């Protein structure tokens, strides 16, 4: 039952074969049994989940379910605000923070009947690619507990992969949904910037932050996106465009689609097994009737460097509010305000967060702004133009999600080698283009590999359609990890 995708669960509820409460209890039992080893959750909202499941039961009994997500047990990354449930962002500085409101995405999933199982672990303030930078505990990869699940949304990704949630929500600022999805062998979707409201997402890099689903399969990802997408009067950066019927787009296949494979996404030092799997996947797509051509995205190699100017700049500003005055941690005993804030921030933030705050503060300083931030914005425009040029010829970009499979805990001690992990992920965040990672095979050691599709702005239907066609033509989604209890 904890292997079943959400759309099949809904069918089972409708047929009366099981109930949301039975499924929720099964998930809670599995969390209780396995999460000590996995570390996927920071908070398990057991009582709340059972109450929501009971309400869902009643709706099915009355023949008035809210839709395909009614009774779906989900894990939410702890960067998303949940009314009355502590929201830590994986940081000591927000350890006691209980938001008085729900993120719009969570409010909308709740309105669709979803059941929150708990809040997923993450790298502190979503800064990291391994979930090792959580202030509370690391999350382990269910395929190999010695390895990382990716990050920063490693908690919910691992939960969905290990059967500790039927689906989940992550956030993607520089690959933080898609990279852990690839490492954990599940589907991870980053929608177009502005497609899903960011209200209630604790900001890291405001112009780069996206909310998106983790799912067992592409159909579930489409259902979760459909429930969250659409304008929100509380987020001025949301797009007004109507929300298409994502589920209806899935079955159309890839025949006639033009796919572009960018040269710059196959780099020196990349894991040959990853390259092999991705090239095989491209062959499968060609076999399904898509046309494939090489494209060039020459600014790709600058995108990562540029990302490490813009994201820290915005982070240094967004994280200024954690000063011990209003909420979260306050270090006692300071003699004045400045000392209170300094000591609170020194104790409350981890090393990676401090590194990025300093980096961001520096690039925004008088005299350096133009050289760094101003220039980074110009490069960002160039990256966007690269994609526009490519999309003049092709409908979708197909590329590897990561240069390598999941690495071992403690393996990447040098921040730069950690950052390099996101080299293929970052361009979609910089441009706001929708992108998805779907499983496309396993390494010899049995670790999952992710295939990435990048689409045109707001063209999630085509993105989902290609991902779905590939998924249906391959066996990868049927393989599940077995987590030793």
């Amino acid at each position, binding site marked *: 039952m904890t292997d079943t995708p959400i759309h099949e669960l809904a069918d089972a509820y409708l047929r009366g074969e099981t109930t949301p409460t039975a499924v929720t209890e099964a998930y809670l039992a599995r969390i209780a049994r396995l999460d000590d080893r996995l570390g996927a959750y920071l908070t398990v909202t057991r009582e709340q989940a059972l109450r929501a499941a009971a309400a869902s039961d009643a709706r099915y009994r009355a023949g008035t379910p809210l839709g395909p997500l009614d009774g779906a047990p989900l894990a939410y990354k702890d960067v998303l605000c949940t009314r009355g449930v502590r929201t830590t962002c994986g940081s000591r500085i927000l350890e006691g923070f209980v938001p008085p409101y729900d993120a719009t995405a969570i409010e909308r999933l709740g309105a669709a009947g979803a059941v929150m199982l708990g809040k997923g672990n993450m790298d502190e303030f979503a800064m990291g690619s391994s979930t090792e930078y959580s202030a509370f505990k690391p999350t382990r990869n269910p395929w190999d507990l010695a390895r990382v699940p990716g990050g920063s949304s490693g908690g919910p990704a691992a939960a969905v992969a290990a059967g500790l949630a039927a689906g989940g929500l992550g956030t993607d600022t520089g690959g933080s949904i898609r990279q852990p999805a690839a490492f954990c062998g599940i589907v991870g979707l980053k929608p177009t910037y502005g497609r899903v409201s960011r209200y209630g997402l604790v900001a890291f890099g405001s112009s780069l932050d996206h909310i998106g689903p983790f799912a067992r399969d592409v159909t579930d990802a489409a259902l979760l996106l459909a429930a969250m997408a659409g304008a929100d009067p509380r987020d001025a950066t949301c797009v007004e465009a109507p929300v298409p019927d994502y589920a209806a787009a899935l079955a159309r296949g890839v025949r006639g689609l033009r796919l572009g494979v960018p040269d710059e996404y196959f780099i020196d030092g990349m894991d040959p097994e990853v390259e092999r799997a991705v090239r095989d996947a491209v062959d499968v797509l060609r076999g399904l009737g898509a046309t494939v051509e090489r494209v060039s995205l020459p600014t790709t190699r600058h995108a990562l460097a540029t990302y490490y100017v813009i994201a820290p700049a915005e982070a240094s500003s967004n994280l200024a509010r954690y*000063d011990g005055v209003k909420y979260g941690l306050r270090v006692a005993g300071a003699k*004045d305000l400045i000392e209170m804030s300094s000591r609170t921030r020194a104790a409350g933030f981890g090393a990676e967060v401090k590194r990025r705050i300093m980096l961001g503060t520096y690039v925004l300083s008088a005299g350096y702004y133009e050289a760094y931030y101003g220039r980074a914005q110009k490069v960002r425009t160039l990256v966007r133009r690269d994609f526009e040029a490519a999309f003049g010829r092709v409908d979708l970009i197909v590329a590897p999600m990561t240069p390598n499979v999941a690495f071992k805990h403690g393996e990447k001690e040098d921040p730069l080698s950690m950052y390099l992990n996101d080299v293929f992920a970052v361009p979609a965040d910089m441009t706001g283009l929708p992108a998805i990672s779907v499983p496309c095979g396993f390494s010899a050691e049995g670790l999952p590999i992710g295939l990435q599709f990048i689409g045109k702005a707001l063209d999630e239907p085509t993105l989902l359609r290609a991902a779905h066609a590939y998924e249906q033509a391959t066996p990868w989604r049927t393989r599940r990890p077995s987590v030793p209890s």
Partner: protein
Amino acid sequence: MDVVIGLEVHAQLLTRSKMFCGCATTFGAAPNSQTCPVCQGMPGSLPVVNRRAVEFGIRTALAFNCRVNEACRFARKHYYYPDMPKNFQISQYEEPLAEDGALEIDVDGASRTIGIQRLHLEEDVGKLVHEGTLETAQASLVDFNRSGVPLMETVSRPDLRSPEEAAAYLRAFRAVLVYLGVCDGNMEEGSLRCDANVSLRPRGSSELGTKVEIKNMNSFKNVQRALEFEVRRQAEALEAGLRLVQETRLWDAERGYTRSMRSKEFAHDYRYFPEPDLVPLRIDRAWVDAIRAGLPELPRQRRQRFLRQYGLPAYDAELLTHSQALADYFEAATGELPQAKLVSNWIMSELLRVLPADDEAAIRAAKITPRHLAGLLKLIEDGTISGKIAKDVFQKMVVSGEEARAIVAREGLTQLADEPALAAVIDQVIARNPKAIEDFRKGKTAAAKALVGQIMKATQGKANPAIVNRLLEEKLSKI
């Protein structure tokens, strides 16, 4: 030395809700009762621009003949202070709402045009509440009710040449804002705040001297006093051969001096960058045109009209139109009684004796309404009461809110116009004052005035002075 002054004025906009959230903006509500996650800077909250505040900004920009930019952008201004919940303020920096306007002011009868460099929108901060100073207090509490209230900052060019001009600019500026209905103009409550940049330079030079910023001037009087002090301080320092430092100084109204707050070395690096949570604001031309079409008559236009329509002297027109409430009061009273100069005299000499000219609310709420004042003046015009009695009646009306007629009737103040009765009184007075009559005969005309005084006294001031004068003249000519 030439004095060079530029003013930065912050005006709280009279919108019902805040700049970036839906919270109310009512002044004086219980602490933190008008707050939400957005204006408390809670994690995950996002700003949304208040369209009404933008409209108010455009309205003001048009009144100052500024160019309203086709697009403007919000930016984050960073500094740490506990009354500012995000530790950055959403303001505008490189792309303000409007630029390049002007305001005409009049000082000593001469008119001058003061350039307005830019006008932009931003959010206000909260308030710290503590005993004593922040340094000595045991604890400080934060009230976020004011946090996020829309502010409009307008920066003048350094065109002002004296503290008097600065005060005149501020008065004229405030009048425009009040006429537009975008700000209540109350400096004491902080709805209008003014900072000044002051420098001196050799007469005729075009180079600017060392600039000092003055803060904390919370009334018109204080703006002028603070600037006078600062100009004197700088002049004395320069005369003594000292070098001035670029710094920010606070005006201490109680002690009457400015003191250094921070020098340039400690100046903030605000690390401005475009606010990523808000998209650039495109200003629709049709919207601007509609706002322009809806602009009310502004103080200067109204002054011109007062000169033309009512034939008032320039001084009267200027004073009356500085306050919208006062100008409205005048026009309402004149509507009842067309003797404009008489109405104007009474407003300036009597009404402004009891009400401050810049307190719009008090003028609008005055117990003596324009109709009441006109009613009182009509009683003078038709001879029912004398001007002297009218002043006493006025004082009573201010307190009670009654009509003049009611007070006059109750207190029997009606003027004595009965000729035989008055003639009898005059005869008595003449009989009692042979000395005065003697003087009059010798050609001392002043003696007649003394007799009029006696007659008025005998009638408790109620005698109609015109009739008294005529009758007395007749009687004296027969003597």
